[in-house]
């Protein structure tokens, strides 16, 4: 294990791959970055604490569960929970993701994943096996799965040369690794061991509760003799009957175990090789190769998730990294909602957003008109962008946020001694304290717990503070006057002009007209104050 590690570090020395330096003498001092698909500086160190605060608000927790369900136990969530701060890393990942969108390369990686799963399964069986020889056989199987997986991936990378530095680095690493003495020895030893075991042939004699075992000495095939004798009856037509074997579990029964034990005595050379293989190649899997496996899974999990949406015609785009406004996205949508709608056979409404000098978007409009979804969408687009993934939309140009801060309505907690308003304000203060000019703030009905007059006052104050900090903000509110504050852009959840009671779910830039959905409905059914009064007043 130790030697494998030093070899690996030796490998990554930037001056070519000095084979002679595979110093078994001692550990190489400098730590060289491992090839990574996640960032130019190597993989981000893990250790992400629980779910980030904004996940639940933006439905990113649901997205995470849906994305990584097929890759359980790989710890991909930690990557998903860690948006990048470094623009170079974002670009690095975007290029890797673009490479992996090519189906042949993705296919090569999927095969690689399967091979690695077989390897893990083999190691698990080797771990669990109680029979020592079966343990060694499963260990050999695991090593074979590993070699095969690497071989397949290598061929895939050769056949479809990647263009991203991430995958190129990985390929270079793989190339060097395949030439390393450790790997060559593993491959040669496997070859020798397997051929020795495959060559074993022995004779079993079963008779009345007695089993005898000895080496095979070239006795003829009696079954064939019988078949030859009776062949005139059925001619060249082979006996057609196909037996089905009952499925067997992974472990040996006591007779099989006895046979295996005594085969080891009968064929000491072949089993000696197996034993040597088991002793020499503990920990054969290079950890530096396991990292990229996990990382590639991260990308493919996401690409596989969005594939059906793309097929349905929804656009995805790699956002351009920008420092100066305008920051915008066009034809974006809530990814979680889109997946749900697609499952039901429909598609979501797409919306765009734009931050320029006005860095605060104030969203007003009808109830149930898509305001919250819009806010969520903006948050998701920024988060996915900060992970280096393609985001929903046909065009996007975004500022890499240092943090995404959300304030959605929380249920009142009776155990807290503070009132709901007090709690809301405290949360707002925490958010505002943490915000910088690179932060994205998403406030969803933040003042719903205050009286109207108070809410106006607080709202005005909060927006002032956001503006002072220069943060990007999305504020969903029913206070349309906030949309008239300086530095804000007013967006309104639209209703059908023909039929004001029908919601379009489109969020359009429009001055907030203060007409709430309830009023629209009331008008439609002739229930406004004026109409009612006119009708009840006994006619004109």
């Amino acid at each position: 294990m130790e030697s494998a590690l030093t070899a690996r570090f030796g490998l990554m020395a930037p001056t070519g791959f000095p084979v002679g330096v595979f110093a078994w003498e001692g550990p190489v001092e400098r730590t060289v970055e491992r090839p990574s698909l996640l960032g130019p500086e190597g993989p981000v160190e893990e250790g992400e604490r629980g779910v980030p605060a904004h996940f639940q608000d933006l439905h990113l927790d649901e997205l995470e569960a849906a994305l990584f369900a097929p890759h359980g136990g790989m710890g991909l969530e930690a990557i998903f929970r860690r948006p990048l701060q470094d623009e170079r890393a974002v670009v690095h990942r975007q290029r890797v993701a673009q490479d992996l969108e090519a189906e042949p390369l993705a296919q090569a990686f999927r095969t690689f994943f399967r091979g690695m799963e077989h390897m893990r399964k083999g190691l698990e069986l080797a771990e669990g096996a109680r029979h020592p020889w079966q343990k060694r056989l499963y260990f050999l199987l695991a090593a074979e799965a590993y070699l095969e997986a690497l071989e397949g991936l290598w061929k895939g990378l050769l056949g479809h040369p990647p263009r991203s530095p991430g995958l190129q680095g990985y390929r270079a690493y793989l190339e060097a690794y395949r030439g390393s003495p450790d790997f060559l020895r593993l491959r040669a030893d496997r070859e020798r061991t397997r051929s020795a075991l495959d060559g074993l042939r022995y004779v079993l004699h079963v008779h009345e509760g007695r089993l005898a075992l000895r080496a095979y000495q070239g006795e003829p095939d009696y079954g064939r003799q019988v078949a030859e004798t009776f062949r005139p009856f059925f001619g060249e037509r082979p006996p057609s009957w196909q037996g089905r074997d009952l499925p067997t579990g992974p472990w040996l029964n006591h007779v099989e175990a006895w046979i295996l034990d005594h085969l080891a005595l009968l064929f000491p050379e072949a089993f000696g090789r197996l034993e040597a293989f088991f002793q020499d190649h503990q920990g054969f899997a290079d950890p530096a190769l396991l990292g990229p496996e996990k990382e590639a899974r991260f990308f493919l999990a996401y690409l596989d998730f969005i594939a059906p949406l793309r097929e349905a015609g929804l656009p995805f785009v790699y956002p351009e990294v920008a420092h100066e406004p305008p920051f915008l996205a066009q034809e974006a949508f809530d990814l979680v909602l889109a997946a749900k709608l697609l499952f039901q056979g429909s598609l979501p409404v797409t919306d765009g957003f734009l931050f320029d000098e006005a860095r605060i978007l104030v969203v007003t409009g009808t109830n149930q008109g898509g305001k919250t979804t819009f806010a969520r969408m903006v948050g998701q687009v920024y988060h996915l962008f900060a992970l280096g993934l393609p985001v929903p939309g046909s065009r996007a140009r975004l500022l890499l946020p240092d943090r995404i801060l959300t304030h959605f309505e929380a249920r009142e907690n009776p155990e807290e001694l503070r009132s709901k308003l007090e709690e809301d304000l405290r949360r707002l203060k925490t958010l505002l304290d943490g915000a910088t000019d690179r932060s994205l703030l998403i406030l969803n009905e933040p003042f719903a717990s205050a009286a109207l007059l108070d809410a106006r006052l607080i709202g005005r104050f909060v927006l002032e503070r956001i503006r002072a900090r220069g943060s990007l903000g999305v504020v969903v509110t029913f206070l349309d006057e906030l949309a008239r504050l300086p530095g804000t852009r007013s967006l309104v959840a639209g209703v059908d002009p023909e039929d004001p009671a029908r919601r379009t779910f489109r969020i359009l830039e429009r001055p907030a007209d203060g007409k709430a959905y309830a009023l629209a409905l009331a008008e439609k059914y002739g229930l406004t104050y004026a109409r009612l009064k006119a009708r009840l007043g006994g006619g004109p």
Partner: protein
Amino acid sequence: MRVGLLFPDRDLDLAHPFPFGWENVEHDLGLGDVYRAMAGEDGYLLEVVRKVLAQGLTSQAATVLHRQEAVREALERPDLVEALYTLAGETLAAKRRESYGLFQRDRPDLYGAIKAMEAFLKGLRALLTLLQRTPLTSPPFQALKARLEAVLTPAFFRQAEEAHLEALRFPKGVWMAAGLSREGRSQGYTLLPPEERRAWWPFGKRPRTYVLTLHPRDEAGARILGEIREKGILEAAKALATAVEEVARFFESLRAEAGSLLGVARLAGRLKALGLPLAFPTPAEGLRLAFRGLYDVGLALRQGMAVGNDLEAHDRNPILITGANRGGRPPF
């Protein structure tokens, strides 16, 4: 193996369905009495002659000539076809006593196949003797004898009966070769010949052998050994069971073909007893129709007599029949 008495290139297939509307044809031509004369009380034979007459409609000239040869021999030696018919029936009955379907369970039944093959070998031996004892004159019967002689050599009987059917009972257990599977089990079994009880390896020492003796109450172990044994004998069991199936098919065909010839011989006997003439028609190409003294067989059997008619109507079609009522138009 082929029987080949009725067809030059194949055996009678009783699974073949009747042609469409055959029941009506049978009724219109008055074949019921003909069937009864051929089959007597034998229900199986009745079915066979119906099938043969139905399939005869699609025969080619070569088949007709081939069958005429076989029928001549049958008319000459009705006792031979009767003996063949009986022998085939008895052999099949004996086989059925020993085993039903050999492939019905999840593995071929080797023991059942051995018993069935024993019955068949007895039947084949008797069949060969019967054919060899009789001075055969017709090509179909001679060809059948030649085909059987080619396969059923004394060496074959020695090997099959004395060697294999004895050895496959494995009185001293099963020897098999195997290799190691990736999971550490045995795989790729081949059956080895039973070992003689003799001094091992006159030069050098006996090969190293390990022996596992199960505890008498180790039922799981006994079951596992049984499974290993089954895997070892699988190839031989498959081969033997396939051979049994094929020989069974041979005897089924022999029974049907000999039976139909027997029916023909019986019918001819009845007609001869009535003093009526018999002739083998010559198949011809195109619209050729000519006969002399042709009579309705069914009518003859019913009335004990029939009047023959003559006609020469080459290249004429259709033929109209007129005349007095009750003058014999429908029989014609």
